[in-house]
C-alpha cells in the first residue's frame, strides 16, 4: 500500500481519536471520563479471567447459534428454493415470521425454558440468524440460471453433484449476503440475550459495570464490543473475498460490456 493510501485510511481515525483524547482530558463529567482513564482501565478490566469467563462464552454461543442457523438455513432454503410449490406455500408464512424483530423472540423463548441457561441464548441467536440466511438461500437457488441447470442435466450430473457443484455454488453470492446480515443480527442478539437474563458474558459484564456505575470499565466493555463487531465483520469479508473472487470478476466483466 502506498504511503498516500495508508495516510488516507488512518488519517481521520487518528485525528478523531486524538480529538477525543484532548477534549475529554480535562473532563470531570461522570458519563464521559477522559480517554486516558479508559485506556488505562483496559488491561485492569480485561484480564485473563473475564476474557475466559465472559468474552469466550459469549463468542462460543454466537458461533454455535450462527452455525446452526447457517446449516439449517441453507438446507431448508435449498429445499424450498428448488420447488415452486413449496416456495408458494411457505413464502407468506416466512415473510411474517421474519418480520418479527428478533429481540422480541426473547420473551417468547423465555416462556419456554426461562432465560438463565446457555441453551436459550443459543436458540435466540440461531432463530434470529436463521431468517436472512433462509430467505436469501431461497432466492439464490430460485434464480439460478436455467441454462446452467440444463447443462448439468445434459451432462447427466447426479443429484448430489448438481447440488454441490451447481446449485450451492451458483447461489453462493446470495447466500453470502444473507450470511452477512445474519452475522450482524447474531452479534446484536448475543448482547441482548445477555442483557435479558445474564449469567456471564460480554454483554452481561457491561451491564454489571453500568449498574455498579463503574463508568470507565463500562466504556472499555463498549469499546471491546465494538472492536469485536469490527473484527468479526472483517473476518467475514476476508472469507467472502476469497471464496467469491469469481463472482466479482464475473460482475466486472459484465459491467464492462
Amino acid at each position, binding site marked *: 500500500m502506498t504511503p498516500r493510501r495508508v495516510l488516507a485510511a488512518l488519517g481521520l481515525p487518528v485525528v478523531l481519536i486524538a480529538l477525543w483524547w484532548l477534549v475529554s482530558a480535562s473532563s470531570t463529567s461522570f458519563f464521559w471520563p477522559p480517554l486516558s482513564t479508559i485506556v488505562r482501565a483496559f488491561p485492569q478490566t480485561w484480564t485473563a479471567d473475564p476474557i475466559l469467563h465472559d468474552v469466550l462464552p459469549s463468542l462460543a454461543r454466537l458461533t454455535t447459534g450462527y452455525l446452526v442457523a447457517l446449516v439449517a438455513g441453507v438446507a431448508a432454503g435449498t429445499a424450498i428454493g428448488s420447488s415452486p410449490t413449496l416456495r408458494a406455500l411457505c413464502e407468506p408464512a416466512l415473510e411474517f415470521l421474519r418480520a418479527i424483530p428478533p429481540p422480541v423472540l426473547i420473551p417468547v423463548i423465555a416462556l419456554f425454558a426461562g432465560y438463565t441457561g446457555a441453551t436459550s441464548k443459543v436458540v435466540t441467536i440461531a432463530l434470529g440468524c436463521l431468517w436472512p440466511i433462509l430467505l436469501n438461500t431461497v432466492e439464490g437457488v430460485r434464480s439460478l440460471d*436455467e441454462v446452467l441447470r*440444463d447443462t448439468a442435466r445434459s*451432462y*447427466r450430473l447426479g443429484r448430489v453433484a448438481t447440488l454441490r*457443484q451447481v446449485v450451492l455454488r451458483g447461489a453462493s453470492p446470495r447466500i453470502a449476503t444473507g450470511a452477512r446480515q445474519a452475522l450482524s443480527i447474531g452479534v446484536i442478539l448475543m448482547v441482548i440475550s445477555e442483557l435479558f437474563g445474564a449469567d456471564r458474558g460480554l454483554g452481561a459484564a457491561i451491564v454489571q459495570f453500568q449498574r455498579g456505575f463503574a463508568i470507565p470499565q463500562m466504556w472499555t466493555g463498549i469499546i471491546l464490543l465494538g472492536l469485536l463487531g469490527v473484527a468479526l465483520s472483517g473476518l467475514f469479508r476476508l472469507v467472502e473475498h476469497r471464496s467469491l473472487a*469469481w463472482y466479482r*470478476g464475473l460482475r466486472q466483466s459484465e459491467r464492462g460490456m
Partner: protein
Amino acid sequence: MIALDVAGLAKTYPGPGGVEAVRDLTFQVGRGELVCVVGPSGAGKTTLLRCVAGLLDLSGGRISLDGTPVTGPPAGMAVVFQEYGRSLFPWLTVRKNVELPLKEKGLAKAARTAKVDAALESVGLLESAGAHPWQLSGGMQQRVAIARAVAYEPSVLLMDEPFAAVDAQTRADLEDLVRELWQRLAVTILFVTHDIDESVYLGQRVLVLSNRPTVILEDVPVDLPEHRDQLATRSSPEFARIRTHVYELVQLAKKGGRPDPE
C-alpha cells in the same frame, strides 16, 4: 449404422387448449454424419433439440440413440447451447469446466487430464486453461463449451444455434472448427441453426422444418466436396443452387407450406 433414430416425434405444450408445437418429425442420422436443421422462427427447432437431448418429455413418438430409447438425458450425448456465457460455470476455470462432465463419468485423474488437454488443444485454447470463462471473449467461451462437449467423447453432438450470438467473423472461424473436429474425431453431429448459408456450408444434409405444427418439409442432400472453404465453397455455383433451394423452402415454410404427400 444409425446413430440417432427419430420416429414420429410430437410435442404439445400444456396450457389452455394445448399448443401443438411439433406434429411429426421422422428422420435418421447415420453414424459420423453432420446433419443441419433449419426452419422459420418458431418452427420448433429448439423443441426438437431439447427432446432429442432428453431435456424435454415427448408427447408422442420415439427417439433412439444407438438403438436405446431416450427417456432422459442419455449417456453418449453432449449439447452445446447458444448461450455460452450461461452454460459455462463462472466459478470454475476453463480447465475445470471441461473436466467436470468427465469427473461425473468416473474417469481417473490422469485420463481426465489427458482428454481435457487434447480437447482444449483441438479448439486452440490450451493456454487459457487456467482462466475463468468470463475473462474470455464470446467466441472463446463458445470454444470452451465445444471443447467440453468434445472431451466428453459423445456418440452424438447436439448444437443448438451455437453461433447465433457471436459476431460474423468469429462465426466463420467456429464453423470451420466444427467441420475440422467433425472430420478428425468422426463424431456424429446434429446442428440446429436459423442461418441458411451456415446450414448448407456445414452439413451433409439439411432438414428443412415447416412452421407450427412442425413436420419435416424436405431432407435436402448437400452434394458439396468434403473439403470446404469459406471463400471458395460459398462462391461455388453448386452452393448457390442448394442454398437457393433451401431458401425457397424456408420461405414456403413461413407461408405455411406442407410437404407433398408421398
